[in-house]
């Protein structure tokens, strides 16, 4: 499938016109929507955390870019999570309509990998600033 076709499948009017399969159980549709909203709130929380680190934390002594090093990836991850959550919602809805197995989610992996990376960077920044 080409990239333009993949993007077209994600557009809201394409999703709403999807008449394949049967109407899923409303509870599963609601649950899918709640999962999307939960990931959206996680994305917003990451943006808040990133902004708070850059704007409100005192600078790390000896590491002038330390706050930006920690905060900016978190804000960017917020945007990535939001887009990925939407694509997963579309895929889940597609699977629900057709009675197919639910696709595997990559969101927990992305979140865990990024948080681990940020934690390691934070440790290094703290260590450097403590040694100076």
């Amino acid at each position, binding site marked *: 499938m080409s990239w333009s076709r993949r993007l077209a499948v994600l557009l809201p009017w394409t999703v709403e016109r999807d008449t394949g399969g049967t109407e899923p159980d409303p509870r599963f549709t609601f649950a899918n929507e709640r999962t999307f909203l939960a990931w959206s709130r996680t994305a*917003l929380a990451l943006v808040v955390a990133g*902004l708070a680190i850059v704007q409100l934390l005192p600078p790390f002594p000896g590491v002038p870019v330390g706050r930006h090093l920690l905060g900016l990836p978190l804000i960017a991850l917020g945007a990535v999570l939001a887009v990925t959550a939407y694509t997963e919602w579309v895929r889940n809805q597609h699977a629900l309509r057709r*009675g197919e197995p639910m696709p595997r989610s990559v969101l927990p992996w992305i979140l865990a990998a990024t948080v681990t990376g940020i934690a390691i960077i934070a440790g290094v920044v703290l260590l450097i600033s403590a040694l100076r």
Partner: protein
Amino acid sequence: MTAQGAHDRPGDDRGAPDPGLARERTLLSWTRTAIAFGALGGTVLKTNVMTGLIILAIAPVVWQLGRVSRGHSARADLPAVGATRLFFITVSIVAVSLLCLAVAIFGKSAPGALR
């Protein structure tokens, strides 16, 4: 998954066959999302008033989107897919992230405000 097979599937909705409860939980989820937008707007307001106000303005829109889709649905038992609403949330978060990136990079910081 069809409605007929729903009772055979384990999950958080088991034992609660009334879709009204699921609708209630989803409505609460929309409310929490609106509050999250409000909290972010309040935080940004502390560093950049204009950006904070823009984000704060999204909060009531999100709250209303969650209510409208359920309250005025012609088929009350079945949720509208509502892809446009979710697409709006996604676009809003991406836009908010870009605004916050700009604020974080170019904005004047208030170091020590958490002390």
